[in-house]
């Protein structure tokens, strides 16, 4: 019998599987951190976790509540600073970063700053970039975990906080950004990547029980639908056990 799980657990498991062993990942709090921790305990024991405020490869005793709290450098190999982390990204030594936001467009650009059309009087103000723009600009592969809905997946972001492929094609390189950019989007409905030339968002696999129509209905722009679409593998019993018992026993992330 297949184990039961919620969509947050599914997204975390999918993300964890896609972090290669022996690579570096810059994570925030919450789901990305859970994914990196799960990855270490399953497929990628030598995954190196970095926190933007300075913590490098800590022995995480529990889920941090802040990217700079003391857990992020507990028994770390280095407790450095923000500049150390960001320059490590800039030099090309950080493979993955996780980003989130209020809106994402078809080229993977992300809005975490504001909703509305007047910058000086936003309808809703969010925190802004923090380190997100830096990660999106400087890391090789940015990963996005988010809920799939029409007001999140929009034709055009009200504001581009962090770069994806900008207007697609070579726009990213032409703007002066280094090679890199969004790599994978994991939602409660599907997994998406970007077309190698046009850099437009493309469905890779549908989550268990999800049909393509559902994905289309919940996306505010036209997705590239390839002839062959995969099926996202459900979390295994072992993944779920580790996630629930070892990574997030207090259900801070997966419980919601």
């Amino acid at each position: 019998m297949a184990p039961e799980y919620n969509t947050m657990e599914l997204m975390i498991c999918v993300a964890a599987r896609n972090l290669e062993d022996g690579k570096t990942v810059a994570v925030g709090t919450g789901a990305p951190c859970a994914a990196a921790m799960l990855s270490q305990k399953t497929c990628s024991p030598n995954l190196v976790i970095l926190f933007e405020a300075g913590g490098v490869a800590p022995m995480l005793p529990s889920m941090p509540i802040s990217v700079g709290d003391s857990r992020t450098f507990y028994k770390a190999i280095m407790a450095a600073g923000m500049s150390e982390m960001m320059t490590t990204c800039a030099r090309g030594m950080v493979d993955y970063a996780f980003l989130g936001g209020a809106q994402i467009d078809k080229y993977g650009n992300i809005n975490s700053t504001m909703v509305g059309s007047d910058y000086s009087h936003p309808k809703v103000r969010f925190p802004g970039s923090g380190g997100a723009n830096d990660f999106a600009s400087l890391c090789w592969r940015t990963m996005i975990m988010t809920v799939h809905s029409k007001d999140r997946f929009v034709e055009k972001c009200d504001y581009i906080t962090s770069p994806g492929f900008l207007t697609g094609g070579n726009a990213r390189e032409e703007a002066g950004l280094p090679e890199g950019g969004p790599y994978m989007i994991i939602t409660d409905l599907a997994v998406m990547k970007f077309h190698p030339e046009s850099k437009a968002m493309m469905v890779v696999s549908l989550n268990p029980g999800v049909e393509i129509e559902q994905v289309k209905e919940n996306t505010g722009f036209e997705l590239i639908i390839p002839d062959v679409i995969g099926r996202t593998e459900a979390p295994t019993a072992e993944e779920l056990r580790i996630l629930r018992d070892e990574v997030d026993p207090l259900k801070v992330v997966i419980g919601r």
Partner: protein
Amino acid sequence: MEVLDQGINPIFTDPDPDKAREFFRQKSRAMVDKRMTEKEAVEKFVHDGDYFAAGGFGANRIPSMIIHEIIRQRKKNLGFLGHTSTHDFQLLVAGECIDRCDAAYIVGLEARGLSPNARKYVQAGKLKLTEWSNYALDVRLKAAAEGVSFGIVRSILGTDTFKMSAAKVIECPFTGKKYAAVPACWPDVVAIHVHEADMYGNCVIKGISVADLELARAAKHLIISAEKIVSNSIIRENPTITAIPYYMVDAVVEAPYGSYPGNMAYCYFSDEAHLAEWLKVEKDPEAFAKFLDHYIYSSANFEEYLEKCGGLKRMEELQKLENVVEA
């Protein structure tokens, strides 16, 4: 120098390195006792209209004590450097102390949610904003610390973060690569909370330094609050770990639990219940006004605030929480 593109928002601080040099030329290098109370430090070094920045990151190792005093002294029209500012930003907005801000991360408290009051303040246009990323702001501080008027970064290019910044796109004279040039930022006054300082201002920070090494070096005036004042001979025993030398420092304030309700690594964890109370009470402006009056305005000093928050008993709980981190 050819500028290919530029952000549309203002620079809040003067990027002229020679004016900064002239300031630092006059700044005393005397190794004298700089200990004073938080009241004296803020009276002496924070003035209405100044551009202010705080050390730490999120609610970690932030100079809560000094910020409370800024609110209590009702400082107005301050500028603020918001690089992953959370409770510090929330406090300064609660006191309506700031009217302009270099923003990389504001109004939120990371995983804890968003501050209703700070959000309202920004949405009402009460804060003139110029946007940056955390690292772009850090490069601005590094440039100031290096005594030059600009730095370069590959972040923010191509985005609205660039458009709403004051950066300029330039090309490398060696490779033709494009960069965002960002102006040096010398804040008028900076407050940093550290683990240990001697009475002259030599400081030790344990754990991550975030952007505080740059911030201390870019600061025109620097207020240090320290969990513990140590003797100069302790500093001299291990000069390798001095994070900030005394000649950058103007004031040294003894501040046990000075980052509360934030997390001070190796000392005490954040008071999540109190931070949650903030987020809750902010939803009701009237209740929030009473809350602020109770905790800040009607407290004679930070010590009184700590008493109201549970005093030593609560602090000991938070110490325990910090020291028993292993599952």
